[in-house]
C-alpha cells in the first residue's frame, strides 16, 4: 500500500501532466486551424483552364544539282571536236549537293557549252545568298564585262587569259520554289595562252538559304 506522501506526489505529477497535455492540445489545435486556413485559402478558388495546344512541323530546304553538256549523253563522253575527233574527255559526278566536273586533255580553241540545273526538291523556297569561287592559287579571274569571266595563269602569261567563260541563266534572279529549277548556262573557251601539261582546279559554292533570309 503506497504511503500518504507517495499519493500526494503522484497526484501532483498527474496535475502537471494534465496541464502539459492541455498546452499541447492547444498548440495542436492552433496549428490545425492555421493549416486549415492556409488550405482553405489555397483551395478556395474555382478555376477553369482554356488550353491551346500547338504543333509546329518544319519544312525541308533541299537542292539537287544536275549537269549536262551540249553534245554528250549521260555523265561522260568525248567533247565535240571538229571532224568528229576524240581528243578531250569530260565526266562528272553528283554526290549530294556536290557536282564534280573533270575535263582531261584539253587544248586551245576547245569550247565546252552546258548547263548546271539546280532543282528544289525540298519544301521551302530557296534564295541565292552567296557565290564563292575558289581555284588554283595562281589562277586569276577578271570580269571585263558582266557575265564574262577571264581566267589568267600569271605564271604563264599575264597578258592573255588561258580561258574565257561566259555565263548566263536565271540562277541569280529567281528564287527556287519547291519543285522548280533554275539554270546556269556557261560557255568555256580555252585560249591560245593555255599551257600544256597543266592542271587547274576550281570550286564554285552556291550558297542558298531559305528564301526569306537570303
Amino acid at each position, binding site marked *: 500500500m503506497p504511503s500518504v506522501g507517495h499519493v500526494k506526489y503522484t497526484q501532483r505529477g498527474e496535475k502537471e501532466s494534465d496541464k502539459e497535455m492541455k498546452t499541447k492540445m492547444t498548440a495542436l489545435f492552433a496549428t490545425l486551424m492555421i493549416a486549415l486556413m492556409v488550405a482553405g485559402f489555397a483551395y478556395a478558388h474555382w478555376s477553369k483552364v*482554356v488550353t*491551346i*495546344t*500547338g504543333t509546329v512541323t518544319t519544312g525541308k530546304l533541299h537542292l539537287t544539282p544536275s549537269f549536262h553538256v551540249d553534245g554528250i549523253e549521260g555523265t561522260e563522253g568525248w567533247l565535240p571536236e571538229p571532224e568528229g575527233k576524240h581528243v578531250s574527255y569530260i565526266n562528272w559526278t553528283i554526290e549530294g549537293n556536290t557536282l564534280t566536273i573533270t575535263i582531261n586533255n584539253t587544248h586551245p580553241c576547245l569550247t565546252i557549252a552546258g548547263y548546271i540545273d539546280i532543282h528544289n526538291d525540298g519544301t521551302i523556297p530557296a534564295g541565292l545568298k552567296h557565290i564563292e569561287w575558289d581555284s588554283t592559287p595562281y589562277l586569276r579571274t577578271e570580269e571585263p564585262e558582266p557575265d564574262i569571266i577571264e581566267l589568267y595563269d600569271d605564271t604563264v602569261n599575264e597578258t592573255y587569259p588561258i580561258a574565257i567563260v561566259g555565263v548566263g541563266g536565271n540562277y541569280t534572279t529567281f528564287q527556287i520554289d519547291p519543285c522548280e529549277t533554275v539554270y546556269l548556262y556557261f560557255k568555256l573557251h580555252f585560249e591560245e595562252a593555255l599551257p600544256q601539261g597543266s592542271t587547274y582546279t576550281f570550286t564554285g559554292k552556291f550558297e542558298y538559304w531559305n528564301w526569306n533570309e537570303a
Partner: protein
Amino acid sequence: MDSKKLFATLAILIIALSIAGFAYAHWQKIVTIKGEVTTGVLDLIIISAADDDTGIDPDYDKDVADTVITIDPEDPQIAHITITNAYPSYHVYFHVTIKNVGTIPAKLYAIEVDNPNECIYVEAWDGQYEQLHPGDKGDYSGYIHVLQCAEQGATYEFTVKFVFWNWNEVP
C-alpha cells in the same frame, strides 16, 4: 385511514400536478429557417479561333508554311494549332475568343506557356484585361516565331493555358 397519510398523499399529488401543470402550461410557436445554397458554375469555352496566316505567309510574299487553328470538337475548352512546313523566321499570330458560359464572373489568373523548345518562341497575352461576366466574351492572342536554330523536318510541340478563376479570388 390515517388522516396524516391522506394529507401527505394529497399534498404530494397537488405538488405533482402543479409541476405537471407548469410544464404543460406554456404555448409555443417555432419559426424555422431552412437553408439551401446552390453554387454557381465557372465555365468558359472557346467560341472562335483564327490566325493571321490566311494564305500568303505573314510579312512575306509566298505561301509556304500553313497555320491552322481549330476548336476541339469534343471539348471547346481546347483549341489546336498546327503549323506545317515552317521555316526560320516564320511567324504567326493566333487569336481565340473565349466566352463565359458559366454563372460566375471569371477573371484571368494566369497564362501558362509550356514550351520546352528553345527554337520556337511562343507567347500569349490577354487582349481583354477585364473580367468576363456570364455571357461575356473576350479576345486573347498569342504569337509563334520559328527561330534560326529550328531543325529541318522537325516537330515541336507547346501548350498555352489561360487559367481563369472566380473573379473575386484573383488578386
